Protein backbone atom coordinates (compact mmCIF):
# COMPACT_ATOMS: atom_id res chain seq x y z
CA UNK A 1 0.00 0.00 0.00
CA UNK A 2 1.46 3.39 -0.95
CA UNK A 3 1.80 6.16 1.62
CA UNK A 4 -1.07 8.04 -0.01
CA UNK A 5 -3.28 4.95 0.07
CA UNK A 6 -2.47 4.47 3.74
CA UNK A 7 -3.38 8.06 4.54
CA UNK A 8 -6.56 7.96 2.43
CA UNK A 9 -7.69 4.70 4.04
CA UNK A 10 -7.37 6.19 7.49
CA UNK A 11 -8.84 9.54 6.45
CA UNK A 12 -11.88 7.59 5.34
CA UNK A 13 -12.16 6.09 8.81
CA UNK A 14 -12.01 9.56 10.32
CA UNK A 15 -14.83 10.64 8.00
CA UNK A 16 -16.86 7.59 9.04
CA UNK A 17 -16.38 8.50 12.71
CA UNK A 18 -17.20 12.17 12.15
CA UNK A 19 -20.16 11.87 9.80
CA UNK A 20 -21.37 8.26 10.12
CA UNK A 21 -20.98 7.65 6.37
CA UNK A 22 -19.69 4.79 4.23
CA UNK A 23 -15.91 5.31 4.08
CA UNK A 24 -15.88 4.08 0.48
CA UNK A 25 -17.96 7.11 -0.49
CA UNK A 26 -15.00 9.34 0.33
CA UNK A 27 -12.66 10.02 -2.57
CA UNK A 28 -9.80 12.42 -3.09
CA UNK A 29 -12.24 14.84 -4.70
CA UNK A 30 -14.76 14.79 -1.86
CA UNK A 31 -15.46 18.23 -0.42
CA UNK A 32 -17.86 19.74 2.10
CA UNK A 33 -20.56 20.08 -0.54
CA UNK A 34 -20.66 16.29 -0.85
CA UNK A 35 -21.26 15.46 2.79
CA UNK A 36 -24.25 16.51 4.88
CA UNK A 37 -22.94 17.70 8.20
CA UNK A 38 -19.55 18.83 6.96
CA UNK A 39 -20.12 22.39 8.11
CA UNK A 40 -18.06 24.39 10.58
CA UNK A 41 -19.07 22.14 13.45
CA UNK A 42 -18.55 18.98 11.44
CA UNK A 43 -15.16 20.30 10.34
CA UNK A 44 -13.93 20.48 13.92
CA UNK A 45 -15.28 17.04 14.64
CA UNK A 46 -13.44 15.72 11.59
CA UNK A 47 -10.24 17.50 12.63
CA UNK A 48 -10.43 15.96 16.08
CA UNK A 49 -10.88 12.50 14.59
CA UNK A 50 -7.99 12.99 12.17
CA UNK A 51 -5.71 13.96 15.07
CA UNK A 52 -6.70 10.81 16.95
CA UNK A 53 -6.42 8.46 13.99
CA UNK A 54 -2.98 9.72 12.91
CA UNK A 55 -1.53 10.88 16.23
CA UNK A 56 -0.86 14.36 14.84
CA UNK A 57 -1.63 17.94 15.82
CA UNK A 58 -3.55 20.20 13.46
CA UNK A 59 -3.24 23.94 13.91
CA UNK A 60 -5.61 26.69 12.82
CA UNK A 61 -3.82 27.14 9.48
CA UNK A 62 -4.22 23.44 8.74
CA UNK A 63 -7.93 23.63 9.48
CA UNK A 64 -8.33 26.53 7.10
CA UNK A 65 -6.60 24.68 4.27
CA UNK A 66 -8.52 21.41 4.65
CA UNK A 67 -11.18 22.16 2.05
CA UNK A 68 -11.33 18.77 0.39
CA UNK A 69 -9.98 15.26 0.91
CA UNK A 70 -7.04 15.81 -1.43
CA UNK A 71 -5.86 18.73 0.71
CA UNK A 72 -6.48 16.77 3.89
CA UNK A 73 -4.37 13.86 2.62
CA UNK A 74 -1.62 16.25 1.59
CA UNK A 75 -1.55 18.01 4.96
CA UNK A 76 -1.54 14.75 6.89
CA UNK A 77 1.15 13.21 4.70
CA UNK A 78 3.32 16.25 5.37
CA UNK A 79 2.72 15.98 9.12
CA UNK A 80 3.54 12.28 9.14
CA UNK A 81 6.76 12.82 7.22
CA UNK A 82 7.82 15.35 9.88
CA UNK A 83 7.27 12.74 12.57
CA UNK A 84 9.63 10.21 10.95
Amino acid sequence: MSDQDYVLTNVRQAFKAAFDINPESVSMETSASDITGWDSVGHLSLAGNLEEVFGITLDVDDLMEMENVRQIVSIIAAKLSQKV
Partner: protein
Amino acid sequence: MSLNGNDLFSLRNKTIVITGGTRGIGQAITMRFARAGATVIANYLRNEQAANELKAISIQEGLDIKLCRADLTSDKGLEQLALSLQEWAPQLGGIVHCAATGIHRPLEELTERHFDWTLNLNVRAFFKLIKLLITRLSNGSSIVAVSSWGAIRALPYYTLVGSSKGALEALARHFAAELAPRGIRVNILTAGGVLTDAWKAMPNAEARIAEIVRRTPAGRLVTAEEVAYGAQFLCSDAARAIIGHTLVIDGGLGVMA
Protein backbone atom coordinates in the same frame (compact mmCIF):
# COMPACT_ATOMS: atom_id res chain seq x y z
CA MET B 1 -40.07 59.65 12.55
CA SER B 2 -43.53 58.14 12.61
CA LEU B 3 -43.76 54.67 11.18
CA ASN B 4 -46.89 52.92 10.03
CA GLY B 5 -47.55 49.25 10.60
CA ASN B 6 -46.15 48.28 7.22
CA ASP B 7 -42.87 50.06 7.78
CA LEU B 8 -42.18 48.96 11.35
CA PHE B 9 -40.80 45.51 10.54
CA SER B 10 -39.60 46.19 7.02
CA LEU B 11 -35.90 45.87 6.22
CA ARG B 12 -36.16 47.79 2.95
CA ASN B 13 -33.13 49.90 2.08
CA LYS B 14 -30.98 48.02 4.59
CA THR B 15 -27.92 46.01 3.60
CA ILE B 16 -27.20 43.36 6.19
CA VAL B 17 -24.31 40.92 6.53
CA ILE B 18 -25.20 37.51 7.90
CA THR B 19 -22.28 35.28 8.86
CA GLY B 20 -23.05 31.60 8.46
CA GLY B 21 -25.91 32.76 6.29
CA THR B 22 -26.34 29.81 3.96
CA ARG B 23 -27.36 26.99 6.31
CA GLY B 24 -29.56 26.33 9.29
CA ILE B 25 -30.65 29.34 11.34
CA GLY B 26 -28.41 31.62 9.27
CA GLN B 27 -30.09 30.56 6.05
CA ALA B 28 -33.53 31.13 7.55
CA ILE B 29 -32.45 34.62 8.64
CA THR B 30 -31.03 35.34 5.18
CA MET B 31 -34.30 34.34 3.49
CA ARG B 32 -36.49 36.21 6.02
CA PHE B 33 -34.43 39.38 5.73
CA ALA B 34 -34.37 39.28 1.94
CA ARG B 35 -38.13 38.72 1.84
CA ALA B 36 -38.49 41.70 4.18
CA GLY B 37 -36.75 43.84 1.59
CA ALA B 38 -33.12 43.78 2.72
CA THR B 39 -30.08 43.33 0.55
CA VAL B 40 -28.40 40.41 2.26
CA ILE B 41 -24.76 39.51 2.09
CA ALA B 42 -24.67 35.88 3.16
CA ASN B 43 -21.25 34.76 4.30
CA TYR B 44 -20.31 31.08 4.25
CA LEU B 45 -17.20 28.94 4.07
CA ARG B 46 -17.59 25.27 3.48
CA ASN B 47 -20.67 24.15 1.68
CA GLU B 48 -20.68 25.48 -1.86
CA GLN B 49 -23.74 23.44 -2.75
CA ALA B 50 -25.86 24.97 0.01
CA ALA B 51 -24.71 28.43 -1.06
CA ASN B 52 -25.62 27.74 -4.69
CA GLU B 53 -29.03 26.40 -3.68
CA LEU B 54 -29.68 29.56 -1.71
CA LYS B 55 -28.62 31.66 -4.68
CA ALA B 56 -30.97 29.70 -6.95
CA ILE B 57 -33.90 30.34 -4.61
CA SER B 58 -33.04 34.03 -4.44
CA ILE B 59 -33.06 34.29 -8.23
CA GLN B 60 -36.35 32.41 -8.42
CA GLU B 61 -38.01 34.75 -5.91
CA GLY B 62 -36.31 37.94 -7.07
CA LEU B 63 -34.53 38.44 -3.75
CA ASP B 64 -31.36 40.45 -3.35
CA ILE B 65 -28.94 37.97 -1.80
CA LYS B 66 -25.24 38.15 -2.46
CA LEU B 67 -22.89 35.35 -1.42
CA CYS B 68 -19.51 35.93 0.15
CA ARG B 69 -17.28 32.97 0.79
CA ALA B 70 -14.77 33.93 3.46
CA ASP B 71 -13.11 32.33 6.48
CA LEU B 72 -13.86 34.74 9.31
CA THR B 73 -11.17 33.20 11.51
CA SER B 74 -8.45 34.48 9.20
CA ASP B 75 -7.31 38.00 8.43
CA LYS B 76 -7.36 37.09 4.75
CA GLY B 77 -11.00 36.02 5.01
CA LEU B 78 -12.00 39.22 6.79
CA GLU B 79 -10.17 41.20 4.13
CA GLN B 80 -12.12 39.34 1.45
CA LEU B 81 -15.38 40.21 3.17
CA ALA B 82 -14.36 43.85 3.48
CA LEU B 83 -13.45 44.04 -0.21
CA SER B 84 -16.77 42.48 -1.21
CA LEU B 85 -18.63 45.00 0.92
CA GLN B 86 -16.64 47.84 -0.61
CA GLU B 87 -18.02 46.74 -3.96
CA TRP B 88 -21.59 45.94 -2.88
CA ALA B 89 -22.39 48.11 0.10
CA PRO B 90 -20.25 50.92 1.42
CA GLN B 91 -22.85 51.45 4.16
CA LEU B 92 -24.36 48.67 6.26
CA GLY B 93 -27.69 48.52 8.02
CA GLY B 94 -26.76 45.56 10.15
CA ILE B 95 -24.69 42.52 10.98
CA VAL B 96 -26.02 39.19 12.24
CA HIS B 97 -23.31 36.88 13.56
CA CYS B 98 -24.68 33.39 13.10
CA ALA B 99 -21.52 31.51 12.09
CA ALA B 100 -20.53 29.05 14.78
CA THR B 101 -18.56 25.91 15.34
CA GLY B 102 -17.59 23.59 18.17
CA ILE B 103 -16.51 20.17 19.35
CA HIS B 104 -19.10 18.18 21.24
CA ARG B 105 -17.18 15.91 23.62
CA PRO B 106 -16.79 15.24 27.35
CA LEU B 107 -14.10 17.17 29.22
CA GLU B 108 -11.56 14.32 29.14
CA GLU B 109 -11.55 14.43 25.34
CA LEU B 110 -11.33 18.21 24.95
CA THR B 111 -8.01 19.92 24.28
CA GLU B 112 -6.81 23.50 24.31
CA ARG B 113 -6.80 23.45 20.52
CA HIS B 114 -10.50 22.55 20.49
CA PHE B 115 -11.00 25.50 22.83
CA ASP B 116 -9.08 27.83 20.50
CA TRP B 117 -10.81 26.56 17.37
CA THR B 118 -14.25 27.07 18.88
CA LEU B 119 -13.67 30.50 20.34
CA ASN B 120 -11.84 31.70 17.24
CA LEU B 121 -15.01 31.62 15.19
CA ASN B 122 -17.71 32.00 17.80
CA VAL B 123 -16.21 34.94 19.69
CA ARG B 124 -12.98 36.30 18.24
CA ALA B 125 -14.41 36.51 14.70
CA PHE B 126 -17.35 38.56 16.01
CA PHE B 127 -14.95 40.92 17.78
CA LYS B 128 -12.79 41.32 14.66
CA LEU B 129 -15.80 41.66 12.37
CA ILE B 130 -17.27 44.53 14.39
CA LYS B 131 -13.91 46.30 14.57
CA LEU B 132 -13.51 45.86 10.82
CA LEU B 133 -17.00 47.05 9.84
CA ILE B 134 -17.81 49.60 12.54
CA THR B 135 -17.16 52.59 10.30
CA ARG B 136 -19.59 51.22 7.71
CA LEU B 137 -22.48 50.85 10.15
CA SER B 138 -24.93 53.69 9.71
CA ASN B 139 -26.91 55.47 12.42
CA GLY B 140 -29.94 53.27 13.06
CA SER B 141 -28.14 50.04 12.20
CA SER B 142 -28.39 46.87 14.22
CA ILE B 143 -26.00 44.13 15.28
CA VAL B 144 -27.31 40.76 16.43
CA ALA B 145 -25.24 38.02 18.04
CA VAL B 146 -26.91 34.65 17.73
CA SER B 147 -26.45 32.71 20.94
CA SER B 148 -27.94 29.61 22.44
CA TRP B 149 -29.35 28.25 25.65
CA GLY B 150 -25.99 26.71 26.38
CA ALA B 151 -24.62 30.17 27.21
CA ILE B 152 -26.35 30.05 30.59
CA ARG B 153 -27.21 26.37 31.06
CA ALA B 154 -24.98 23.31 31.18
CA LEU B 155 -25.87 20.95 28.34
CA PRO B 156 -24.29 17.57 27.58
CA TYR B 157 -21.06 17.82 25.55
CA TYR B 158 -21.70 21.52 25.02
CA THR B 159 -18.86 22.87 27.18
CA LEU B 160 -16.93 24.69 24.48
CA VAL B 161 -19.85 25.96 22.42
CA GLY B 162 -21.79 26.98 25.54
CA SER B 163 -18.87 28.85 27.06
CA SER B 164 -18.14 30.54 23.74
CA LYS B 165 -21.75 31.71 23.54
CA GLY B 166 -21.49 33.05 27.07
CA ALA B 167 -18.44 35.05 26.03
CA LEU B 168 -20.21 36.16 22.86
CA GLU B 169 -23.17 37.45 24.88
CA ALA B 170 -20.91 39.39 27.27
CA LEU B 171 -19.06 40.92 24.33
CA ALA B 172 -22.37 41.89 22.69
CA ARG B 173 -23.58 43.59 25.89
CA HIS B 174 -20.42 45.64 26.17
CA PHE B 175 -20.67 46.60 22.51
CA ALA B 176 -24.31 47.53 23.13
CA ALA B 177 -23.36 50.02 25.83
CA GLU B 178 -20.51 51.50 23.84
CA LEU B 179 -22.22 51.78 20.45
CA ALA B 180 -25.70 52.96 21.49
CA PRO B 181 -24.59 56.63 21.61
CA ARG B 182 -23.56 56.25 17.95
CA GLY B 183 -27.03 55.03 17.01
CA ILE B 184 -25.89 51.43 16.57
CA ARG B 185 -27.97 48.89 18.48
CA VAL B 186 -26.51 45.58 19.62
CA ASN B 187 -28.68 42.72 20.87
CA ILE B 188 -28.55 39.00 21.43
CA LEU B 189 -30.86 36.43 19.91
CA THR B 190 -30.89 33.14 21.71
CA ALA B 191 -32.74 29.99 20.83
CA GLY B 192 -33.65 26.82 22.66
CA GLY B 193 -33.79 23.56 20.75
CA VAL B 194 -34.06 24.43 17.05
CA LEU B 195 -34.81 22.01 14.25
CA THR B 196 -31.70 22.15 12.02
CA ASP B 197 -29.03 19.84 10.61
CA ALA B 198 -26.73 20.92 13.46
CA TRP B 199 -28.21 18.09 15.57
CA LYS B 200 -26.45 15.58 13.33
CA ALA B 201 -23.12 16.59 14.91
CA MET B 202 -24.35 16.14 18.49
CA PRO B 203 -24.07 12.94 20.50
CA ASN B 204 -27.36 11.27 21.53
CA ALA B 205 -29.29 13.74 19.40
CA GLU B 206 -32.53 11.76 19.26
CA ALA B 207 -32.79 11.32 23.02
CA ARG B 208 -31.88 14.94 23.67
CA ILE B 209 -34.44 16.23 21.19
CA ALA B 210 -37.11 14.05 22.82
CA GLU B 211 -36.18 15.44 26.24
CA ILE B 212 -36.34 19.04 25.00
CA VAL B 213 -39.74 18.43 23.43
CA ARG B 214 -40.98 16.87 26.67
CA ARG B 215 -39.85 19.85 28.73
CA THR B 216 -40.93 22.61 26.34
CA PRO B 217 -44.39 24.06 27.06
CA ALA B 218 -44.98 24.47 23.33
CA GLY B 219 -44.41 20.72 22.98
CA ARG B 220 -42.03 20.99 20.03
CA LEU B 221 -38.72 22.32 18.85
CA VAL B 222 -38.54 25.86 17.57
CA THR B 223 -38.12 26.23 13.81
CA ALA B 224 -35.29 28.15 12.20
CA GLU B 225 -37.90 30.43 10.61
CA GLU B 226 -39.26 31.35 14.05
CA VAL B 227 -35.77 32.34 15.16
CA ALA B 228 -35.49 34.40 11.96
CA TYR B 229 -38.68 36.31 12.86
CA GLY B 230 -36.96 37.38 16.06
CA ALA B 231 -33.87 38.45 14.15
CA GLN B 232 -36.01 40.52 11.79
CA PHE B 233 -37.67 42.25 14.72
CA LEU B 234 -34.31 43.13 16.31
CA CYS B 235 -32.99 44.55 13.03
CA SER B 236 -36.15 46.50 12.26
CA ASP B 237 -37.20 49.99 13.31
CA ALA B 238 -39.76 48.41 15.63
CA ALA B 239 -36.89 47.52 17.96
CA ARG B 240 -35.26 50.95 17.95
CA ALA B 241 -35.43 51.28 21.75
CA ILE B 242 -34.16 47.74 22.39
CA ILE B 243 -30.49 47.72 23.28
CA GLY B 244 -28.37 45.07 24.98
CA HIS B 245 -31.36 42.76 25.22
CA THR B 246 -31.42 38.98 24.99
CA LEU B 247 -34.43 37.87 22.98
CA VAL B 248 -35.19 34.27 23.78
CA ILE B 249 -37.00 32.08 21.28
CA ASP B 250 -37.46 28.69 22.89
CA GLY B 251 -41.13 27.72 23.01
CA GLY B 252 -41.13 28.39 26.76
CA LEU B 253 -38.34 25.95 27.66
CA GLY B 254 -36.47 28.53 29.72
CA VAL B 255 -39.28 29.18 32.18
CA MET B 256 -39.49 25.58 33.31
CA ALA B 257 -37.83 24.51 36.56
